[in-house]
């Protein structure tokens, strides 16, 4: 023991060191006892202090922040499960169903959840339920298109037996399930496909759009969205609003029970203005030919038939088209996916003449009062513009010029009016701008003008308007190009003597629950405020077409009055299209146009029809127009193909007389 040294620590080390100097004396014992008691009290104070801290924490959580945590607990507990609404039905004007839903079982796979890999699972499934190579290709394509780890359908419309067979073996297939779903079906198939359109699975781009529009929440639980046609343009009405179930879930997300339910509001049904029977007749008349027909009720703007041939089967697209079918459709030389009625732009040919004539009357250009010499050509400077009638008619005046489709007359008229006036007056008929039809993808066509040319071309030498270019504009060639819809619309305006209705394919929007219908009111958009006698005079000329002019033979024996105009459009303007060498001959033939409305006094229907590479207007297009009017106005069905000879109308007999047109624009 070395106390001196220890004493150094005594001061530093405090009580513990101090105890070393004494050896168990009573005083030290007492001192230690009181020291220990002090430490007990300090310990107790620490305990109380820390328990108070805990209590403060509990008070904070359970009293001050209670509402917040209560909300969080509720959010944990309650999950909103979307209940998607049934999509609205689409019917034609007579109630024929064009798009409906049916409930069926699908086999769906969640690729990320399969036990032994996707391919092995499909292989094993195949032993239970036949899965065709087509199904597999379609499934692969779907997988590439979806990022999320969602379940994707591999086989549709399982039979009851297949469902039972899978149910008995489902334990072997983790990640595979049978789901009952509503399917979209288009019972008319190809008929009216460009009109009705189709729905398809929502892709990333659709999601972006929905998010931008703020509609994304309404599509929770919905897999499909309108992609084309009425299905696309009336998406908002057809979809309805998604309902929600408040479901109590556990931490694994499993539903325990339903707390409350907000039912979905089913999508609205659509009643189209289109008569699908009429549509069917027209499509049959086209048969394998390419082209388009748009028929409009001039009193409302309601579209009666909306044909673009060839079509496609919209049912293929609903749950993802398989790559082979897609390739077939997409690469076909006939371009079945092109909606020709509103997306195909063609030079109008002579069908442009009645509108030119109306404009000339309104502008009171001298030529309308004159009779001109018609040698069969028109000289502009040193250029000779030939008439389609070799040798001409000798003389020509305003009224005969329409019926006989005199090129010479309209060459002169165009030159007299000048390009600015043509653009100004013809623009009234919505040429060169969209008609505003309630279908997506409408193109605006080209109503040429110096301004248009300046915008269209980049090089200064191309931007200048040459006076010679005006000449062929007069007969609907040159830069002129319009959609069949635009021509039908313009014809309807003439038929309505200047009243402009916006063309529309949907008549009424019907709430399937209450049955309440909202009509898409036929509101005149505006009037072309031209003198009524000007319209009457043009109509008289068009009537002449079907009485003694280019359409007379086709319209012989019609039980109604009609006013029409033939047209022939040169194909050279389509030189951008791909041509297959083997079919080049057929595909270089002219397009055949016809516009008509009837009856003249009280028009019920106005239409424009084009048959691609159909030759002269009277040859291919006019018979289709005649048969369409016959059916619509008198209920007479066209003669079946093969009985061509019988018809009084000689509907599909080739017509060479009286005046085959051969516009020669340049």
């Amino acid at each position, binding site marked *: 023991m070395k106390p001196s040294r220890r004493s150094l620590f005594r001061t530093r080390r*405090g009580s513990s060191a101090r105890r070393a100097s004494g050896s168990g004396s009573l005083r030290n014992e007492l001192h230690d006892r009181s020291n220990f008691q002090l430490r007990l009290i300090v310990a107790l104070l620490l305990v109380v202090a820390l328990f108070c801290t805990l209590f403060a924490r509990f008070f904070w*959580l359970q009293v001050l922040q*209670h509402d917040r945590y*209560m909300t969080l607990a509720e959010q944990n507990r309650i999950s909103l499960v979307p209940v998607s609404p049934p999509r609205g039905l689409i019917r034609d004007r007579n109630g024929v169903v064009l798009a409906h839903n049916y409930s069926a079982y699908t086999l769906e796979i969640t690729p990320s959840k399969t036990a032994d890999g996707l391919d092995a699972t499909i292989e094993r499934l195949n032993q239970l339920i036949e899965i065709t190579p087509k199904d597999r290709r379609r499934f692969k394509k779907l997988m590439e298109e979806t990022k999320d780890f969602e379940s994707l359908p591999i086989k549709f419309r399982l039979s009851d037996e297949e469902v039972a067979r899978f149910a008995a073996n489902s334990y072997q297939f983790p990640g595979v399930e049978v789901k009952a779903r509503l399917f979209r079906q288009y019972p008319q198939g190809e008929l009216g496909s460009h009109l009705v359109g189709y729905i398809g699975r929502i892709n990333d781009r659709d999601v972006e759009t929905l998010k931008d529009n703020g509609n994304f929440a309404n599509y929770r639980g919905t897999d499909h969205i309108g992609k084309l046609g009425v299905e696309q343009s009336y998406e908002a009405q057809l979809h309805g609003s998604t309902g929600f179930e408040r479901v109590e879930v556990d931490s694994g997300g499993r539903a325990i029970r339903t707390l409350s339910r907000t039912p979905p509001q089913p999508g609205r049904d659509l009643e189209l203005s289109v008569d699908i029977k009429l549509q069917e007749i027209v499509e049959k008349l086209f048969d394998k030919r390419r082209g388009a027909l748009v028929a409009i009720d001039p009193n409302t703007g309601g579209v009666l038939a909306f044909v673009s041939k060839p079509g496609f089967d919209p049912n293929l697209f609903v749950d993802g088209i398989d790559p082979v079918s897609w390739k077939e459709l997409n690469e076909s030389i006939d371009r079945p996916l092109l909606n020709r009625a509103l997306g195909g732009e063609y030079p109008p040919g002579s069908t442009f003449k009645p509108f030119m004539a109306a404009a000339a009357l309104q502008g009171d250009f001298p030529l309308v009062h004159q009779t001109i010499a018609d040698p069969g050509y028109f000289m502009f400077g040193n250029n000779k513009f030939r008439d389609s009638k070799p040798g001409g008619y000798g003389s020509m005046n305003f009224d005969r010029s329409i019926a006989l489709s005199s090129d010479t007359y309209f060459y002169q008229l165009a030159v007299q009016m000048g390009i600015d006036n043509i653009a100004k007056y013809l623009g009234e008929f919505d040429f060169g701008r969209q008609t505003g039809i309630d279908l997506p993808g409408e193109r605006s066509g080209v109503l040429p003008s110096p301004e248009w040319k300046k915008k269209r071309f980049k090089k200064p030498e191309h931007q200048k308007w040459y006076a010679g270019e005006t000449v062929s504009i007069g007969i609907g060639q040159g830069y002129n190009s319009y959609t069949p819809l635009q021509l039908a619309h313009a014809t309807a305006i003439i038929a309505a003597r200047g009243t402009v209705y916006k063309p529309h394919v949907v008549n009424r929007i019907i709430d399937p629950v209450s049955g309440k219908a909202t009509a898409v009111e036929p509101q005149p958009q505006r009037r072309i405020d031209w003198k009524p006698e000007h319209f009457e005079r043009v109509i008289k000329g068009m009537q002449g077409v079907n009485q003694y002019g280019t359409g007379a033979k086709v319209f012989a024996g019609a039980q109604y009055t009609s006013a029409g105009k033939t047209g022939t459009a040169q194909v050279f303007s389509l030189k951008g299209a791909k041509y297959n060498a083997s079919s080049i001959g057929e595909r270089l033939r002219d397009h055949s146009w016809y516009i008509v409305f009837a009856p003249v006094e009280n028009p019920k229907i106005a239409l424009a029809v084009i048959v691609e590479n159909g030759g002269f207007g009277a040859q291919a297009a006019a018979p289709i127009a005649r048969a369409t009017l016959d059916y619509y106005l008198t209920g007479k069905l066209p003669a079946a193909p093969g009985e061509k000879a019988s018809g009084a109308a000689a509907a599909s007999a080739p017509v060479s007389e009286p005046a085959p047109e051969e516009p020669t624009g340049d």
Partner: protein
Amino acid sequence: MIKQLWFYIRRPVDPWLLLFTCLIFALSAVVLHSASNQDADKVLNKIVFMGIAIFGMWVIANISQATLMRIALPGYVAGVIMLILVELVGKTVNGSQRWLNIGITHIQPSELMRIAVPMTLAWFFHHFESTLNWKHFVGAAVLLGIPAVLILKQPDLGTALMISASGFYVLYFAGLSWKLIGLMSAAGGSLVYVVLHWNWCINILHEYQCRRIATMLDPMADPLGAGYHIIQGTIAIGSGGITGKGWLNGTQTHLDFIPERTTDFIFAVYGEEFGLLGNLLLLALYLLVIVRGLMIANSASTLFGRLLAGAIAMTFFTYAFVNMGMVSGILPVVGVPLPLVSYGGTSMVSILAGFGLLMSIQQDRTLIKR
């Protein structure tokens, strides 16, 4: 005859401590019934373990202090040997080597050390009571350090911390310099600060331990990973409000949002269903147990008794504080059960063994006074 038997049975028992224990047990059974989704087997199992633990407590309460002092060091040495064996040939469960196979069953030597460490340290100070100086404190620190480091290496941070705490309490009651305590607190505080702010954590602790500390500071940083426990625990407690959602009505509990809800996080269940008032009741019961333990320490006749009783009472407090603190989100998540309430026999048995020691100490005092 029966009277005599009853006398022998009740003689070593401290009625207050037994009363508080039984009250907490009653609460525990009620909560467990709810936390286990009314699993009768689990509740029955718990009750059986309560009986075993109380019997164990009674047995230990019958052991005299002299015997306790005699077995303290051998127990400690055996424990350390087993810890080393665990390190060499132990069984790995959940990434931790904690279990030692002794042929019939697996045992966790670290549980033994919970009792052995404070006992040995108390014995150590008692043994050198007359000549106590600073060197003994260093020696005691070494005695404490060996098992603490071994257990930390398993790794089992929770148990290592608890054993260190119990050892520290012995040192504290033995008269560890206030200055040193102040210094240690300052050093510990700054170490925690440095660890948290300099990302040195990984080098010192295991990665998941670091994550738990980081998570405690900002649970929302990793809401589905490490933060999930804390977030769901605080949501459960907070949503309980003042009176709680009522027994068996906790949505967090019954929809499986609270992880480990019968064991380490049972307090979240309790807080959700019984609210602030229930929490207050439990805090009060715990406080009564601690005060009783400190009273026994105060009146103990020997230094061994004083130190051991004080350490046991304070260790019990530490369990309660750390568990409730972690579940309510003011302490990091370390695997510490809620004393007497969490499901799990081992921890209950070791806590009641501690109470047995308290009763033994209490009883010696009575005998001496008589």
